[in-house]
């Protein structure tokens, strides 16, 4: 499986996301953007500050992918996480998954994000 993990201080925009894949066996591209909510509970938030222990974050992400891939084989994954100050309405994370069929792409993404939020050493601070 092809894996790309990118940490950036810059906004996550379409050019960083994938173009439509052209692999001969690719039949599905599932994409997820996690966005900084303006309203958290009852509080209005102008921005969040994200920080990471980047070397460990990449290692943990690769371990998670290796485990999930055994259940839901996919062809390629790209993960972009923005760090630093992220204004409301902008994306903190992008995950793109290429697979033969949509089912494994959706299931991989769901489990990956659940695991990501449990163990990957990245924090959002107000």
């Amino acid at each position, binding site marked *: 499986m092809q894996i790309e993990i990118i940490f950036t201080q810059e906004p996550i925009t379409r050019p960083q996301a994938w173009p439509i894949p052209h692999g001969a066996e690719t039949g599905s591209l599932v994409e997820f953007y*996690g966005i900084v909510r303006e309203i958290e509970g009852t509080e209005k938030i102008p921005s969040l500050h*994200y*920080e*990471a*222990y980047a*070397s*460990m*974050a990449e*290692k943990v992400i690769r371990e998670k992918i290796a485990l999930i891939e055994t259940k839901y084989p996919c062809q390629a994954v790209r993960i972009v*996480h923005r760090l630093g100050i992220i204004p409301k309405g902008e994306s*903190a*994370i992008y995950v793109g998954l290429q697979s033969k069929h949509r089912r494994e792409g959706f299931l991989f993404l769901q489990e990956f*994000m659940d695991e*990501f*939020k*449990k*163990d*990957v*050493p*990245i*924090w*959002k*601070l107000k």
Partner: protein
Amino acid sequence: MKVLFFAQARQTAGCPEYTLRTDRPLTQAELWASLLTTFPNLASLQKSTRLARNASYLDDSELLQPGDEIAVIPPVSGG
């Protein structure tokens, strides 16, 4: 032994890292005892915080070696 503080741990300790001088392996309890001597406010985070050794989460009984990079990891919230 280098100890890195992240997020709330960094804010509470007031610095991003700390060098703990030791010439022998430490248990996790010994590490915490030493950290709390220097940074008593970290006590409020100890229960919710995990430790990592050389970029991997620690098992409960794992010892910390003098050359290790230790990270104090509060509950994560990325994504």
